[in-house]
């Protein structure tokens, strides 16, 4: 028998929270639900590592911090298609972890920036 992985530990706590939620009411029940959803984010993040995807997408612009800084100081044009495509890629990676059921995530996934 092998010991449980991080993902399996998270799933165990999720199961427990589901059970606890049924016993709770009001604010505590709501927070148990939120806590369960939060663990689902953690599990997806462990599997997908969106920060790396975002960093790679923005590498041609010097990385995340440099791209942000250049948008702030006007060196990057917010209508630059290559920039928009890179930002879209990072956003999709993050949203796939944070809320893959979000309507704008699906719509942005389905629509390429020409």
């Amino acid at each position, binding site marked *: 028998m092998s010991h449980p992985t991080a993902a399996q530990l998270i799933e165990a706590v999720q199961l427990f929270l589901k059970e606890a939620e049924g016993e709770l009411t009001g604010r505590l029940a*709501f*927070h148990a639900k*939120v*806590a369960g*959803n*939060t663990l689902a*984010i953690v599990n997806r993040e462990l599997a997908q590592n969106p920060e790396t995807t*975002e960093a790679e997408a*923005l590498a041609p612009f010097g990385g*995340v*911090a440099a*791209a*942000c800084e250049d*948008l*702030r100081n*006007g060196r*990057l*044009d*917010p*209508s630059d298609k290559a*920039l*928009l495509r890179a*930002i*879209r890629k*990072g*956003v*999709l990676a*993050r*949203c796939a*972890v*944070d*809320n893959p059921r*979000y*309507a*704008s*995530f699906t*719509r*942005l996934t389905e*629509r390429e*920036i020409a």
Partner: protein
Amino acid sequence: MPLSNQQKAVPVLDPITDGKAALQALIQRSSGKAVQLQSVAALSGGASSATYRVDAQIDGKPTPLIFQRTAGEGHDGLPRSIQAEVLQRAGQLGVPVPSVIATTSPADDLGDGVISTMVAGEALAPRWLRLPEYAAAREKLTAQCAEALAKLHAAPLSNWGDLPLKSGSGAELLEGMFTYYRDLGVDVPAYDLAFAWLKPRMPTSPATCLVHGDFRSGNFLVDESGLSAVLDWELTHLSVPAEDLGWLCAQAWRFGHWQKPVGGFGTREELLQAYGGSVSPQELHIWEVYGNLKWGMSCLQLAQDHVSGRVPSVERAAIGRRVSEVAADLTYLIAFGEL
């Protein structure tokens, strides 16, 4: 928008327990009628305010009232007495609002609060956006919202001249928001994209009217015939009409009904037409981008409450991850022109 940490909450009476007598005395003093308090119950506790249902007998007549007061530490919104004043004047202009019964004074020891009439209606937007009994209401709502805003915005600035309200151009509002974003020190590429996109587009002309400042589905009461009241005037300020219209179209208030850009119930075309045609689709688009970005700032702020230890909370931590929902909205809006 950013909550300040400067003020500490002063201990005040609890309207449910030791504050009942003070509440009764306040209603009696303001109404000049015989008042008997029957019951007080907590309705909801938001981050910045607490709301109670108060059942009173006024001159022997059962009267349901609402007592709402500022709660929690650090608070940047308008004092309730000023909000009450704006509420009353908005009512006179024809905006559906509750009637103000009384405003607390420090001697009441009840905090900064207002007592108003209880208007019937559903406050939970996910319910009135979904339930079939509100289908007819949803049909009317876009025109009713446009009409309420048109009446509010039509009042000249002199109507509010004696009140200490914040005022600024769109460009100044954006600048304030950007300063707040930089103070947080985070890098969200889609947010910087939106700031850069908005910067040359925000109007630099001064404010022309009073805006509600938080005109969205979650701040309406809706009954079967539509909009019965516009609540929560805490963020009211002087600006331009399109700010209220754009905020109403932000994705966060559609509660999943994303095909209906106006609050989850209407179309932009219908909104602009019912408003009277003085706001263009381009202007609405700019303020819609601004509105979505502003909601993104709120997500960052709520996450910061948890991360900084100011308000440790699983709910606030989780809202921090809604930052990427807004990033998706903003990227879509800027890349494709509408959402």
